[in-house]
């Protein structure tokens, strides 16, 4: 189980879930490096063990990684946001429309897109905190709403392309040795880590996740904190939309379809309790990495290539790993309840 990280508790570090996850990640990586790397007829190294492949993994995991980072505080408060994938699609379309149809400059269009993301997150936040509706249902509604809006704007057919190279640099080039978007991801990751583990905000998220009533009795502004995590999620989903558009060079209404599920999987796989309270940003980052390496690595295994089953295998293994991690995370709780009953 991931614990509330405290700088003094190094002793328990080896027993922590994050450590276990890190070991799994390294083992997984070595496995693919060994079995997934080969030399082709012209004597070039191909497959998993190339730098290009590693950068590819990084590029592909940035958008889902951002969504997973945003979802960690949401899930820490015992909430959920199913609308992030749809919001990514809506923001991609809005960005394309603002730039292409409204003729705004790229920075202005990008800034407005982030504002739209915040507003969309604010809609979720308002429904959840003011009307006290359950987050699952609210975001299931906005999940359809945001995707529907994106499709309505484009009539399901318009795709925005021909973005300037200066913008595509964000998604397709490298800066200081790493894919550009990886730097954005790292900065957001660091920011989130600080927010969750080093500020009173993170402390409140956890308290709310464990016991919203208890947090209220302690005088914490429960509604404001909960609203904050959903608005923040909206902004980060908009940021992910920009990176997605830059990576593919096009903005379509179906951008980010199904991403919410991948992101939630990564968060939960990273050890954040779906019941709220427990979890860490480090865990989420490891969860994102483990799933991305698995997905990409499977496609390089000769046996999987022969069967042409990379997609199926990665879905199957991700699902199995998630269920395993979930089972593992409730076992200690189960044991402790059994003990108290006795």
């Amino acid at each position, binding site marked *: 189980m991931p614990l*509330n990280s*405290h*700088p*003094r*508790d190094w002793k328990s570090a080896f027993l922590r879930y994050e450590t276990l996850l890190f070991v799994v990640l390294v083992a997984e990586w070595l496995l693919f490096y060994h079995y997934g790397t080969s030399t082709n007829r012209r004597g070039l190294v191909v497959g998993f063990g190339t730098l290009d492949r590693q950068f590819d993994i990084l590029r592909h995991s940035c958008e889902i990684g951002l969504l997973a980072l945003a979802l960690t505080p949401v899930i820490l408060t015992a909430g959920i946001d199913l609308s992030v994938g749809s919001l990514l699609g809506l923001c991609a379309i809005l960005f394309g429309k603002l730039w292409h149809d409204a003729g705004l400059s790229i920075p202005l269009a990008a800034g407005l897109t982030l504002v739209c993301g915040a507003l969309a997150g604010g809609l979720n936040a308002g429904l959840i905190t003011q009307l006290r509706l359950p987050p699952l249902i609210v975001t299931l509604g906005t999940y359809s709403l945001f995707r529907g809006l994106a499709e309505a704007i484009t009539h399901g057919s318009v795709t925005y392309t021909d973005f300037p190279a200066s913008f595509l640099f964000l998604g397709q080039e490298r800066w200081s040795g790493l894919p550009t978007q990886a730097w954005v991801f790292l900065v957001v990751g660091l920011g989130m880590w600080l927010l969750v583990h*080093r*500020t*009173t*905000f993170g*402390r*409140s998220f*956890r*308290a709310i996740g*464990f*016991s919203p*009533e*208890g*947090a*209220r*009795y*302690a*005088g*914490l*502004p429960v509604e404001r904190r909960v609203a904050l995590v959903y608005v923040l999620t909206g902004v980060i989903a908009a940021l992910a939309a920009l990176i997605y558009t830059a990576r593919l060079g096009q903005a379509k209404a179906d951008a980010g379809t199904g991403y919410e599920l991948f992101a939630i999987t990564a968060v939960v796989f990273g050890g954040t309790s779906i019941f709220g*309270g*427990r979890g860490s940003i480090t865990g989420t980052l490891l969860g994102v990495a483990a799933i991305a390496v698995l997905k990409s690595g499977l496609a390089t295994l000769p046996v999987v290539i022969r069967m042409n089953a990379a997609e199926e295998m990665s879905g199957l293994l991700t699902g199995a790993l998630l269920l395993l991690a979930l089972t593992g995370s409730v076992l200690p709780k189960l044991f402790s309840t059994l003990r108290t009953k006795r």
Partner: protein
Amino acid sequence: MAATLPPSPPLLTLRRAAKSFGGVRALRGVDFELQAGEVHALLGENGAGKSTLIKLITGAHRPDAGEITVANRTLTGLTPALAQQLGIACIYQQPALFPDLTVEENIGLRLESSSPWQRIDWRARRARATELLRRVGAAIAPDTEVRTLSMPEQQLVEITCAVGAGARVVVMDEPTASLTHLEQQQLFAVVRELRTGGVGVIYISHRLEEIFALADRVTVLRDGASVGTHAVGDMTETTLIKLMVGREVAQLYPPSECAAGEIVLRVHNVGCAASGVRGVSFEVRAGEIFGLAGLVGAGRTELARILFGQTPADTGQIQLNGKSIAVRSPGEAIALGLAYVPEDRRRHGVILEMPIEENMTMAIHARIFPAAWLRFGRERRLALDFIRDLAVKCAGPNAPGGSLSGGNQQKVSLARWLATKPKLLILDEPTQGVDVGAKSEIHKIIRGLAQEGLAVIMISSDLPEILGMSDRIGVMRSGTLTTVLPGGSDASVVMAAALGQPQ
């Protein structure tokens, strides 16, 4: 009523029944007996052990020791299913019916066994419901949805179920708490009907006049032990109250030494329609412990929640240090210097999964973490200071709150609020479910705080605690503060005020 009862074997007998929760002895060897055709009242202060006794009878708890005899079967304990089978039914203050189903459906769900294919014979169900309702004299159509019924009508449906199940023992836990006088009379008629039919009724009520109007015998519980069973005809209200409280107030309480200072809190005519509190006026001075006594449900916790901004007042004025204040949220209350240690520490007082130190600093984030930035060293020092000052027994400041015993959890909850350096501290049942040792430690802490000049409001259902700790005692009844008594008042005077009996 007849003091001599037929010498038939009793319906239900408890012998030396004992039950403890954690370190707290809720029942310490109680004898109790119920005859067929009698209404047997059960009387006692809050926490005297009435509900525990009822839970042993309905099988919700198993006694640690002693035996129960029902229908000539001697058992070491009951299960709810067995209790039902033996004809024991319980009618609670809040009827446990399905509001969206009709009366006949509710009756059917309780009484029908499943038929092949789970088929429902609607005609038989209706016929049975009609017949049973007629037997208890209830003028309710069987196809009425329960949600449209009044509280007493719902209680009648519960009684109907009990009758239909062939109950020989019917327990009624404060059935009249929410009834009007007329409804109460109707209920009494039904209870008398049951008695005539040979059913034994255990009747719990705080209203003494009901006991005199209805009961044949009365058993008084005090501190988890029975202080005697008497024929109601031999008793008067005064003797009953004496029996309920009649013990020496323990001398263990730390003495009050300090003269009260300036008025810290002045409450004038405060009320809140939503929580049923109305017209409350009192004041608390610096250095004073103002005890709030009253029965469970008298509105004491509700009053605390008003002062702390959880259910803001909609009438009246509140003044703190002479300035009018409006408290609309706990956050505002903390900023003004109010602190509230809630009653339910496991749900509200401490977040069990979080470390002690994080629990202790939870109400002072703004003060000790400037710019929202956590300062672990500062937090730990503060926690260690409180752990030392309040003598919290724990594995360390990072041990989760849930790993502590009740008394130590209460100290953590107290530390959280002392850390806010409040002007007024409201304590709600500060020693409920706490073992004796921790209890007197907590009392010393509270008295010490008052001596340092803090104004303290202490809500407690523990009468000796109220009497021993308070400098003045406010008594609440039915949502309002009826009486303010001086500290050291007689227990029976406080009890009589809580019960609404003129002395």
